[in-house]
């Protein structure tokens, strides 16, 4: 087991360290260490390194959110993306863009707040639907998710239609998911949130195990299920809202990574968490690398690649689940 861990960690780290050096523009290694400004050192330190870091943080966050949702809803198909939470966040963010809401509130960018609100509203609509029909079955959840996805898509289209032509292009590009940033401002903002998110998840691992055994089980062991769920929903909405506001609604990372983690580590939940966090980040770094180099000099939006890979994967899980029953 430790060998498996070590191998994954080493290979992963090598990939993480190597990828920023590779790209359409060859980087002269000499210029990176020498003092003084050069185009190569700018591309490396101000574009590729922050971009790789952002890809890691975003991928890791989406994967961990997916894992948490799976445990809370006791189903491997329930993730923020499939339930429409990412779309909700996107709708909120697009609305903020349209209304030019860059006003900071408590030090937060207006777009983040709208993204967070969109995500939270989506979760509570899904919960309300589940409560009315008294069923948290995956059928109920996914159907509600589909309805919300349709609704938010039309909402986003409407806003796009009302935007200026140049803004439309920018929003469209953002909706396809992208990680090209320059400088570190997004990372400085996201990193503390990410660390809080990861540490809290580790501290709540026992609760996450309990709740994956069902509400009744968790309750019978003395856990305050309602409070826990509300706390988790607010936390996940916030981080997903922020991540979607920055990088667009990147799909399926939250579905694929936890699924693979469980295939490898099965019922060993602690290892599943570690693996999900690490591989989630790594997967998006690699996908983003592919997005940069596949058809140069064009850059493919990273969200398109994840969906290309993720949608068939979703179908695959769905088929194997349905065949089980």
């Amino acid at each position, binding site marked *: 087991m430790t060998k498996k861990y070590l191998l994954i960690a080493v290979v992963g780290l090598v990939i993480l360290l190597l990828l920023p050096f590779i790209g359409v523009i060859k980087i002269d290694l000499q210029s990176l260490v020498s003092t003084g400004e050069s185009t190569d050192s700018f591309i490396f330190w101000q574009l590729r390194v922050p971009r790789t870091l952002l890809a890691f943080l975003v991928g890791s966050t989406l994967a961990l959110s997916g894992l948490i949702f*799976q*445990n809370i809803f*006791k*189903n*491997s198909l329930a993730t923020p993306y499939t339930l429409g939470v990412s779309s909700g966040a996107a709708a909120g963010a697009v609305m903020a863009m349209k209304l030019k809401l860059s006003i900071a509130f408590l030090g937060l960018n207006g777009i983040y707040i709208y993204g967070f609100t969109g995500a939270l509203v989506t979760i509570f609509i899904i919960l309300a639907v589940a409560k009315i029909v008294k069923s948290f079955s995956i059928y109920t959840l996914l159907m509600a998710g589909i309805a919300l996805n349709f609704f938010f898509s039309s909402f986003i289209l409407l806003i796009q239609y009302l935007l200026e032509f140049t803004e439309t292009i920018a929003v469209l590009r953002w909706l396809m998911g992208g990680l090209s940033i320059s400088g570190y401002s997004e990372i400085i903002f996201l990193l503390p949130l990410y660390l809080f998110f990861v540490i809290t998840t580790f*501290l709540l691992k*026992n609760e996450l*195990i*309990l709740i*994956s*055994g*069902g509400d*009744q*089980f968790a*309750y*019978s*062991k*003395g*856990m*305050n*299920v309602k409070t826990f769920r509300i706390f988790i929903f607010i936390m996940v909405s916030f981080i997903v809202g922020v991540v979607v506001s920055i990088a667009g609604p990147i799909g399926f990372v939250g579905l694929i990574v936890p699924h693979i983690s*469980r295939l490898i580590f*099965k*019922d*060993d*939940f602690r290892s599943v968490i570690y693996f999900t966090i690490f591989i989630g980040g790594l997967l998006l770094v690699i996908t983003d690398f592919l997005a940069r180099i596949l058809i140069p000099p064009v850059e493919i939006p990273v969200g398109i690649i994840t969906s290309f890979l993720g949608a068939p994967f979703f179908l695959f899980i769905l088929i194997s689940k349905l065949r089980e029953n």
Partner: protein
Amino acid sequence: MQIEIKDLTYCLNRKKILQNIDLKIKDGDFWLIFGPNGAGKTTLLKIMSGLIHDFQGDARVKGSDIKKISTREMAKVISYQPQFEEFSLPIRIRDILLAGRYPYKSFFKNYSKEDYRVYDEVVRQLELEPFVDRDINTLSGGERKKVMLASAFIQDVSIILFDEPFTFLDPEAVSNLKKMMVEMNRMGKTLVVVSHNFETLFPLVNKIIALKQGQIVYSGKKVFDKDILKETYNTAFERITVKEKEIIFLDD
């Protein structure tokens, strides 16, 4: 007194599920709640376990109001064993067993040495060593029940509530579970079992409740009374003794 219920009525969508229930469950009792489908047995059990709060009347566990007692305090006293375990994701049995120590653990902290000591003891007593590193979903129905009971043991509760414990169990598992129940009761645990096939359980218990359409037909010391059974089930039952064992069967 373990559980005391006074004049309890519970409605769901304006339909009366339970009506004017009075009940006193004492230390060391072994109760069977029986009755036809839809009599309100499971609802009564869920009220006792604190899963349902919006009833009228008074329900107390060890003197404290069920509506006011905290989830954590409740978990130190009562364990509810549902009919189905809804484990759909992989969960390690060790984690399920350790969850029995959850109500004793402070929030954000890991399980302590004492928690592991209790865990080890029960695992050894119930010979669960071969299971602890397995996924609960790989177990048979009977093994699963055993693990869930072991978890209640680790939880150190004094009352265990069972909802239809014998459904989906093969004869060997039924026999094992019956033995475990008798043994637990002998050790001083208070047991309340809900079941509609009371033939299996009747010989084991010492108190019974006959429930029909949300109302109590009879509650108290165990008696084999054909009139009560007839009124509860609309079917006649007969009893014989074979090899010093009570056998109850449908007289149709």
